[in-house]
């Protein structure tokens, strides 16, 4: 008789499927910026300095020793002070930055909600901008065309869609941008404080859509300074401090430790 691995046996008994691979995996990830001690701006200067061996670099480690496994369907929060490395972490997951050390593995289609309205041009119509923004996000033209009606429906911009975006209000712009960015349900969604802009109605729509995605199994990674938001939605919270993971765990525990630390710092300074 074949030996059945105990893990599979137990899960089979429980009627569940075998454990899925993590949606996002970071193993010993480090990001190092190399900055010249003296800024070199011109080509001539660079060649001269190089020939003289005068270029000295300073290492700035934006991230160090980041090891994290994010499970599919998880709602993860990332908190930390400004400059701690939260955005850098998102960039590494979003493939914008290659890690200097370590390894990043992403399983599934990733949608970044980091820069709404990327590529938007004021002189183009809403329709033209939808296709432009959509292709920038990596979608194909036919995909976007198929979802075009739904995109405009969600943004509630049918009367204005063929007008230059120059004529839109900021709120309308954000609605359209958000609608395009969330037109296709991704497997992994990265959200970075983009919800800080826009009015209450817009924010409500954002959270509703994110909630709907999450209910359908999307992994959501949220970077936020709004502790109440993090507490409300996140199942697990990571605290990044000076480029390292300081704490991972239950939202209440981590947030409490973090706020305690921040207040302590403020008292001291």
């Amino acid at each position, binding site marked *: 008789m074949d030996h059945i691995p105990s893990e599979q046996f137990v899960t089979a008994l429980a009627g569940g*499927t*075998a454990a*899925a*691979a993590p*949606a996002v995996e970071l193993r010993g990830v480090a990001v190092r*910026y*190399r*900055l010249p001690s003296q800024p070199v*701006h*011109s*080509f*001539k200067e*660079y060649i001269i300095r190089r020939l003289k061996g005068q270029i000295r670099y300073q290492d700035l480690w934006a991230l160090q020793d980041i090891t994290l496994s994010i499970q*599919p*369907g998880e709602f993860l929060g990332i908190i930390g002070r400004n400059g701690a490395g939260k955005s850098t972490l998102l*960039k590494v997951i*979003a*493939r*914008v*930055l*290659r*890690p200097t050390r*370590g*390894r*990043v*593995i*992403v*399983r*599934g*289609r*990733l949608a*970044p909600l*980091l*820069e709404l309205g*990327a*590529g938007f*041009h004021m*002189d*183009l119509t809403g329709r*033209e901008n939808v*296709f*432009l923004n959509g*292709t*920038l*996000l*990596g*979608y*194909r*033209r036919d995909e976007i065309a198929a979802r075009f009606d739904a995109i405009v429906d969600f943004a509630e911009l049918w009367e204005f869609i063929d007008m*230059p975006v120059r004529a839109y209000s900021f709120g309308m712009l954000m609605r359209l941008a958000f609608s395009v960015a969330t037109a296709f349900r991704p*497997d992994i969604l990265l959200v970075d404080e983009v919800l800080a802009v826009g009015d209450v109605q817009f924010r409500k729509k954002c959270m509703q859509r994110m909630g709907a995605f999450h209910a*359908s*199994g999307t992994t959501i990674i949220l970077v936020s300074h709004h502790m109440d938001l993090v507490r409300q939605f996140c199942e697990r919270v990571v605290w990044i401090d000076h480029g390292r993971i300081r704490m991972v765990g239950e939202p209440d525990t981590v947030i409490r430790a973090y706020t305690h630390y921040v207040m302590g710092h403020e008292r001291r300074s």
Partner: protein
Amino acid sequence: MVQTLNTVVYDSARRPHPFLEEWIELVRYRDLVVQWANRSIKIRYKRSILGVLWTLLEPLIIMAILTVVFSYAFRVAIQNYPIYVLTGLLMWDFFVRATTTMVKEMIASENLAHRIYVPISAFAVANVFAYAFNWLIALVPLMGIALVTGHPMHLPIITLPVTMGLVMMFALGVGLIVSTISVFFHDFSLMYDVLLRAWLYLTPIIYPIDIVPEHLRFLLWINPMTHYVRLLHDAVYFGRYSPLHVWALCGMISGLALLIGWWWFTRTRDAFAYRC
């Protein structure tokens, strides 16, 4: 309902070589190339009516001035100076614009590339296509002038798209090298501007090649642009097919420029996002 996804979409430790990876991504983002080229063209159109006309008018005005100045001086070698100079000027105009704006596009796209993943080469390619479209439109007034001056057009003119394609490849290659360096050193693009000015005079666009003394002709031969403009002159002005060795040479130069430019760009590409 938890999804069981085991397909790895991105693994930073198992990337294909950047040279290949960028190509794979560019093909995947091909719709972006089209949209971005559309955007560049539309912006130029929508800004003003004159915007479109100006890009056509500029080479025509230069041609008119040069005709007044030089057509008498070169009357022996060139019968129809306007057509001769305009053919070369349109190509030169394309090359200058395509390569010099590529830097600006790349620097501007850096803002995007810092936040979302995009294959930056898509902007470079879109840029080349957008200006090639301009070149295409500019052929209309060229044909108009040919009609007015009674210049006959022969069958070899059908090779024009092929020549344009070769020049586009060359422009992309050169543009990628220049813009990759210029992203890190802004003064390099200024040096390139100066180089372009000298380059124009080393190419037989304004003058016929016959006026150059034999012992100095090698300066023109080592200039790749001389050979491209030769293809154009043969097809449009002389109405004949260029000899095969010129086609082969231009093909090789284009291929080489593209390969070197692509290699240079893709090996530096990862560093773009690290620029603060």
